[in-house]
Structures are given as structure tokens and as C-alpha cells.
């Protein structure tokens, strides 16, 4: 087991899930409540990483983050090195790659909040922001948890994007999935299996926890859901 790769993967996935939570809330809010007629266009862009081959996404990210693009040049001017083949580059790539896995559960949860509750909140004088904090967010808790869990697990398991924009630098961009690929390439099936199994068990546990919690939330009643404060 490559502990360095495992630690890197956990760091990457935690950071990306945290950033996606912050970034995903406003995007999901907009998707759930905007009445703009071209909204579906934005939804399609956000959903793109679900259907796009990771190599395609990784390729364009590599170009976009590279020294020839405006973004890449700004980054080089600021930090002195390119975004590609760094941990930061990996974080940016993973955020885009896992965006729909956070935004879609968030947006679904927001849209599922009874619109009459939002109306009641407004009639009682609450601003949109206060309504969001006091009503929308607490009632979307299961969806938020699903979004964060899925984006964490999805980032932890990504391969194509990481390989394209991160390469395979131990301690910097070498994640668990790359490590597995490497070992298979060198016919080291035994240790590849060890790591792969760990990743499989881990992903399974995350999903079991997510679905189990969601189920408890739905059937456990309101008291169980909010701890009977």
C-alpha cells in the first residue's frame, strides 16, 4: 500500500469536497430558483463532466491551465510556476470534474423544499438570504450530505483527469487510482489488488453511510432528523 498516495488522495478529496460545498451552494440555489429561460444551458454545462470522458476534460484543462493560455499565464505571473502538474492544478481539475456531483443533489434538495414555506418566510418579513439559512438549508440537509459525500468519493476515485493534468509525481499528484494503474503496468497484481480493494471498500462504505443516513432521515421522522432540539 502506497500510504503517501493514499494520504494525498484523502487530502485532495477533502479539500475538493469542502470547496465544492461552498461553490456549489450558490450555483445550486440559482439552478433551483432562477426563472431565466436559458437556464437549461447552464445546467447542461454543469452536467457535462458526467458524460464527458475524463481524458477529454483533462485535455482541455491541461490546455487551459498551461503556459499558453491567459489563465495559465496569470497563474505563472502570480506564483512563478505553471498550474499543470501541481497539486493546485489537481484541485481545480477535480472541482470541475466533480461539480455536478455536488450541485445536482444540492439543487434537487433546494427545489424540493415546499414553495409555500418560502412564501410563509417572506410574508413573515424574512429576506431571501434569511429564508435560505433558516428554511432552505436546514430542510435540504440530506441532499447537502449526499452532494458532499458524492463529490468526496468521486474525487477520491478519479483517474483520467488526474493523469492528464497532474501526471504521476509522488507526493504531489500521484493519487491512489494512479498508483493502482502503475502497479498493474508493472505486473504487480498483488499490491494493485491491495490498494484497489481498499478503494472499493472505502467507496462502498461512503455510499452505505450516505444512503443509510438518508433513509434514516426519511423514515425517522422530524424529531430524529433534527435531534429534538
Amino acid at each position: 500500500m502506497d500510504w503517501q498516495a493514499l494520504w494525498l488522495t484523502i487530502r485532495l478529496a477533502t479539500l475538493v469536497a469542502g470547496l465544492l460545498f461552498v461553490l456549489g451552494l450558490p450555483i445550486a440555489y440559482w439552478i433551483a430558483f432562477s426563472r431565466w429561460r436559458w437556464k437549461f444551458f447552464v445546467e447542461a454545462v454543469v452536467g457535462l463532466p458526467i458524460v464527458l470522458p475524463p481524458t477529454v476534460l483533462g485535455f482541455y484543462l491541461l490546455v487551459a491551465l498551461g503556459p499558453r493560455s491567459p489563465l495559465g499565464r496569470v497563474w505563472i505571473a502570480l506564483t512563478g510556476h505553471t498550474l499543470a502538474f501541481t497539486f493546485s492544478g489537481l484541485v481545480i481539475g477535480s472541482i470541475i470534474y466533480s461539480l455536478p456531483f455536488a450541485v445536482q443533489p444540492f439543487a434537487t434538495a433546494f427545489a424540493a423544499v415546499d414553495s409555500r414555506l418560502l412564501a410563509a418566510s417572506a410574508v413573515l418579513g424574512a429576506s431571501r438570504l434569511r429564508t435560505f439559512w433558516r428554511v432552505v438549508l436546514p430542510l435540504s440537509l440530506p441532499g447537502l450530505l449526499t452532494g458532499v459525500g458524492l463529490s468526496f468519493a468521486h474525487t477520491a476515485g478519479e483517474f483520467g483527469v488526474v493523469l492528464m493534468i497532474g501526471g504521476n509525481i509522488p507526493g504531489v499528484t500521484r493519487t491512489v487510482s494512479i498508483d493502482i494503474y502503475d502497479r498493474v503496468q508493472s505486473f504487480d497484481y498483488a499490491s494493485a489488488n491491495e490498494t484497489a480493494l481498499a478503494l472499493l471498500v472505502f467507496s462502498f462504505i461512503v455510499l452505505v453511510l450516505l444512503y443509510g443516513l438518508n433513509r434514516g432521515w426519511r423514515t425517522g421522522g422530524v424529531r430524529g432528523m433534527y435531534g429534538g432540539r
Partner: protein
Amino acid sequence: MADGRSSRHVRRKVTDRGRIELRLRDPEFTLDVGFMLRSGITILFGPSGAGKSTLLDCIAGLRLLDEGRIEVSGVVFFEHASAINRSVQWRRVGYVFQELALFPHLSVEQNITYGIASLPKNVRRERVDRIVEAMRISHLRRRRPAEISGGEARRVALARSLVTDPRILLLDEPLAGLDIPRGPRSSTIFGRGTSCIEFLSFM
């Protein structure tokens, strides 16, 4: 804009408490209403689908109007001609929905204080104490909406509106599920399919 709160006492003796004229075009129907509000209770009768709830939504500011003018207690909520359209929050109406819309994740007390969070704590407590006493729901303060009966929930929703000291109280289907003795009066006077606009003398 005149402050409805301070001028309330002056206006109390006047019978004319507002005028409502509005036109709303929806793909499915057109709502065209005009009437004068008098102090006391105004009751709207009509079969379901006549637009009673829609009218209340318009007064509360939850729906955009095409034309008309809404004036309540000397305060203009909406005036097409001069492009006045006050926000829902600004209008300070009390509105008890047919489906009540209590916040399921908040306790009865948290529901009631929701609209008065900006008031000082002692004022808040005093108002809540008074209203829960009046509505006979003191014993339910810590319960959640899922843990109380339909009639209790209705009284909580009423308390939540009244405690904000609204300019006007809108009740949609106020007799649905109310814990009132099933005498001939209550059912024959109002019947089902009633929306009620009431002028308030609570605070």
C-alpha cells in the same frame, strides 16, 4: 410613505380600510376584482378555482399583477399607474395559508418567533407569552408541527401571523380543520371554500 403603525389609531374609526382593484392574466384564467375593504371582517365566497387564494396571494405580494391598485389602511402596496410594487416583506401582512406552511424543522415557539426575530428579546418574549396564552397553545411550545393536531397547528399558524402585528390578516380557508364545536352556525355561515380578510385589533 406613511407609517401604517403610527397612524393606526387615528384611522381606527374610519370604516373604509382600503381598496383593492386588480387584474391578473394567467395563461389559464383572468382574475378581475375590485372592492372596498371595511373595518372588521371581509369574507370572500366562491367555488374552488374562483381565485380566492390567488387574490390573497396578490394582496400579500406573492404574485405579480398586470394592472390595478392595492391599498390597505392608507398604505399603497401596489399601483400599476405609478409603478409601485412593494415587496412581500415590506407589506407586513399576516397570511395564514390553507396548508398553514408551518416550518417543520422548527418548534412551535421557533415558528412563532420567526417573524419577530429583529425585536428586542424581552419584547419578543412578552409577545410570544401573550399570544400562546390567547391561542391556548402554551403547552405546545417545544413540540414540532408534526407532533401536534391539525387544529393546534392552525392556531400556531394564526399565532405566528398575529405576533408580527400585521397591517391586515389574510386567512385562506380559515375553518378547515379548526377545533371548533360543530354547531350549525359555524358551518352554515362560512361553509367550505371561504377566504377571509380580517382587519386586526390584536396588538
